């Protein structure tokens, strides 16, 4: 059933349990400012709403139902205690502008999280304010800009970004008023250091780097790269979306980065919620501390306080009305405390073990790896170029057919560098049995793509809908329901 909620609506139906009793006058408000017609929200009973959204939910693949090896997204288990605790009345009921004295409980958790993130990242200070990775990036690059400006180093108008970078990196640089220069990648997955050398200069504000990169390999020349950029007077930004690969093993601060963001909804297992919310804390080296966004959480003689613009005059400012995605930060903190000191490294260990196992097995099964000679990090790239040439079956077809077999598809067609690619990230929380099942499904699909090409090309066959027409979606834009519009 995919009837829309609006199609189940009946004019005049009221869900009384949610309907405050009493009549409340708004006669004192000017008629001209009042709404004349009721908004076309659904008029359904509580049962209809619950039934509809329960049934809708069942149409989703999710970590709680399926293996979900979406590369770069780190779809790991979301412990249920995190959700429970973040919803405790004392946490969920607190108004953001209440005096800090009424929030020592939540602030103590957040402060502890800051300290934990400092420890694992090797940075001097951390701000929890950014609400997702992309906002973390914005924050970081804005701080780099503020740093250069504070030193009146105004010629630096360029941000360097490897061509393999996530789309948010160049988009962020532009939002901060920079131009973007792409640095090519070598065949072995490392940055082309000669090209980099040629590109850096007095115009360089900084370099954004993901390490391990989005190619699923560790950038081995990171120390040289850092030196190059620093020598040119630029700063280094670390996109920490792949931190899961090196958690507890390598500290970005020690690789030479000046500013980093972490995706807590990835590495720290907060729920992805069908597209968020996330949390993208930033960590900075000493010289960038003054520029951190406000509010900042600080401790002063055993009390937790919020620092504002008056306390931090050089701050880049606020990123949101309040202080970020607190409830998500709480979930991440709980997860971090449950991992504990000894558990951090294990995350990287087993995420890497799972990825390398899959890489080797799939290779043995005849699939081509984009970076054959390299170790996988927590993820790796498989290219289906050969399969496409031989049978016409694309990475997209493979992806859709995987859905039929009960596996969410890996990330497809990203990074753009690699043709017909699958970016596969199993995460540490999946069992050997699940990995073997996925590998077997991949091999099966390859057989099918030879013997039953059409079956694969027309997949999926067992989902609520068959393959959807994306082109039509963009051409005949229908983003708001009106009766009989399809």
């Amino acid at each position, binding site marked *: 059933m995919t009837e829309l909620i609006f199609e189940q609506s009946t004019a005049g139906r009221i869900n009384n349990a949610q309907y405050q009793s009493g009549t409340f006058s708004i006669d004192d408000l000017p008629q001209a400012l009042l709404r004349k017609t009721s908004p076309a929200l659904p008029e359904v009973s509580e049962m209809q709403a619950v039934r509809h959204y329960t049934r809708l939910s069942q149409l989703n693949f999710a970590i709680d139902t399926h293996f979900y090896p979406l590369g770069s997204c780190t*779809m790991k288990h979301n412990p249920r205690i995190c959700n429970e605790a973040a919803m405790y009345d004392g*946490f969920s009921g607190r108004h953001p502008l209440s005096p800090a004295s009424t929030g020592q409980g939540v602030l103590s958790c957040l402060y502890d999280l800051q300290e934990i993130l400092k420890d694992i990242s090797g940075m001097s200070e951390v701000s929890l304010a950014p609400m997702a*990775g992309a906002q973390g990036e914005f924050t970081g690059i804005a701080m780099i800009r503020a740093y250069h400006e504070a030193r009146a180093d105004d010629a630096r108008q360029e941000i360097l970004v490897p061509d393999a970078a996530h789309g948010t990196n160049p988009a962020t640089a532009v939002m901060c008023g920079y131009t973007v220069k792409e640095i090519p990648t070598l065949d072995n997955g490392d940055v082309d250091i000669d090209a980099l050398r040629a590109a850096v200069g007095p115009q360089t504000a900084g370099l954004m780097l993901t390490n391990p990169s989005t190619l699923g390999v560790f950038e081995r020349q990171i120390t040289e790269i850092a030196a190059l950029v620093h020598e040119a007077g630029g700063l280094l930004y670390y996109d920490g979306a792949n931190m899961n690969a090196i958690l507890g093993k390598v500290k970005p601060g020690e690789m030479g980065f000046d500013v980093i963001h972490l995706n807590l909804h990835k590495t720290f297992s907060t729920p992805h919620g069908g597209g968020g919310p996330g949390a993208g804390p930033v960590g900075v080296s000493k010289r960038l501390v003054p520029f951190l966004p406000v509010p900042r959480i600080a401790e002063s003689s055993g009390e937790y306080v919020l620092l504002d613009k008056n306390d931090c005059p050089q701050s880049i400012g606020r990123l949101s009305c309040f202080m970020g995605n607190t409830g998500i930060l709480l979930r991440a903190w709980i997860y971090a405390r449950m991992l504990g000191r000894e558990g951090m490294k294990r995350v990287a260990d087993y995420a890497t073990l799972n990825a390398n196992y899959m890489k080797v097995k799939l290779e043995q099964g005849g699939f081509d790896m984009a970076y054959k000679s390299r170790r996988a990090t927590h993820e790796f790239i498989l290219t289906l170029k050969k399969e496409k040439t031989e049978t016409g079956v694309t990475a997209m077809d493979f992806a859709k057919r995987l859905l039929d077999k009960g596996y969410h598809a890996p990330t497809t067609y990203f990074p753009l560098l690699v043709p017909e690619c699958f970016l596969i990230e199993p995460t540490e929380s999946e069992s050997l049995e699940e990995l073997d099942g996925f590998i077997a499904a991949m091999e099966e699909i390859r057989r099918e793509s030879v013997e039953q090409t059409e079956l694969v090309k027309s997949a999926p066959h067992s989902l609520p809908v*068959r393959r959807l027409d994306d082109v039509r979606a963009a051409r005949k834009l229908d983003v708001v329901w009106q009766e009989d519009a399809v």
Partner: protein
Amino acid sequence: MPFIPHTEEETRKMLDAIGVSNIDELFDEIPADLINEKLDYVPPAMDEAGIRRLCKNSAQSDGHYVNFIGAGAYEHHIPAAVWQVATRGEFYSAYTPYQAEASQGTLQLLYEYQTMMASLTAMEVSNASLYEGASALAEAVLMSVRAQRKKYRILMPETINPAYRETTETIVKNQGITISNIDYSGDTGTIDLGQLNDQFTDDVAALVIPQPNYFGALEQVDELVDLAHKQGCLVIAVVNPLSLAILKAPGEWGENGADIVVGEGQPLGIPLSSGGPYFGFMCCTQKIVRQMPGRLIGRTLDAEGKQGFTLTLQAREQHIRRSKATSNICTNQGLMVTAATLYMSLMGPAGMAQAAKASHANTRLLVEKLTAIDGVEVVFNSPFFHECVLRIDSPLDDLVREITAEGIIAGMPLGADFEGLQDCLLVCATELRTEEEMDNFALHLERIVSKG
């Protein structure tokens, strides 16, 4: 190992398959001098029973307060079904619906959400969310500049939530955009139309109109919109979505309505949670949809002609357009939107109107009770929705502290943000406040003011 299923035997088997002798070998491409497994701060692992105890204690210590504070986040009733359904694993633990066929649940829900928001604001299009209200305003400003080309000035009234102005400045300042302040009238607490008129120079891309404004007061939105449009300027409305159950929708302001509508989604079923996660919403006209930031869900057909839903107009987004994208936003606030969609479905138009009306009535009652106290008076003579500025003849910092000790959050002191409003408090009483609670607030206020 917490959350890692591997037994030793399995690990062994996997290492053998890979052909290495231990896990550390898998990290052999990392320069050895970078490996540092020493953690100085992180405490030892806690089991679930332990962390639950710790969290309960922390949450308990934050206690329970009666909120008469709003200022951008509001304590409304949230139906129990909202979060019980929203946290179902299939919603909670899925990601952005990149594989549409395997994500029809989330996609249809988001399409329904877009429809609800479009209807609530009377706009043609809604996106699938931004981070929260203030940054949504920043995105709207950027969007208006893209849509207007070569116009880089934004008129921003003083009656906007000051944190929205600050956030917008942080986000847009590096793109050569100027934000000009518009004064408010000391009588009405709304935009000073006279001063505004002088500001319409050629380079103005958009006028921002908050409704209700930060003081809770209602702006003359029809006049403002028409004025701006006459000057070739776009209108960005910043609204409280719950208020739209009773207030005129931005799409119907003036002759042609607002062009972009943004706001904080929190009043739609999201708990206060010390400030987040909430969600920002954004609606606009069809004309400028290609300038919109964020995800957009479209209805389409599948290979058999059956209706289905998918991400659309992705060419605006960073993962396709990279440095030319409309925004860098990627992860948005999906789960919050799920809850808001449930909220709107469970409340319906009548339930939301009732909540809005009750909040209005409660705030009026509160204001009546508080201004009955000698030394407490209303500052602006405008109609208000569910917030109101009171001038109080007593040192505000001490007053707030004393009332907090009674378990009451008195309201938002305005002195830090507004010159001339040092002795003013912004108060709010949503539909959840009882008369008993108001009387208790009045009692303590009177006690403090009278002794002052």
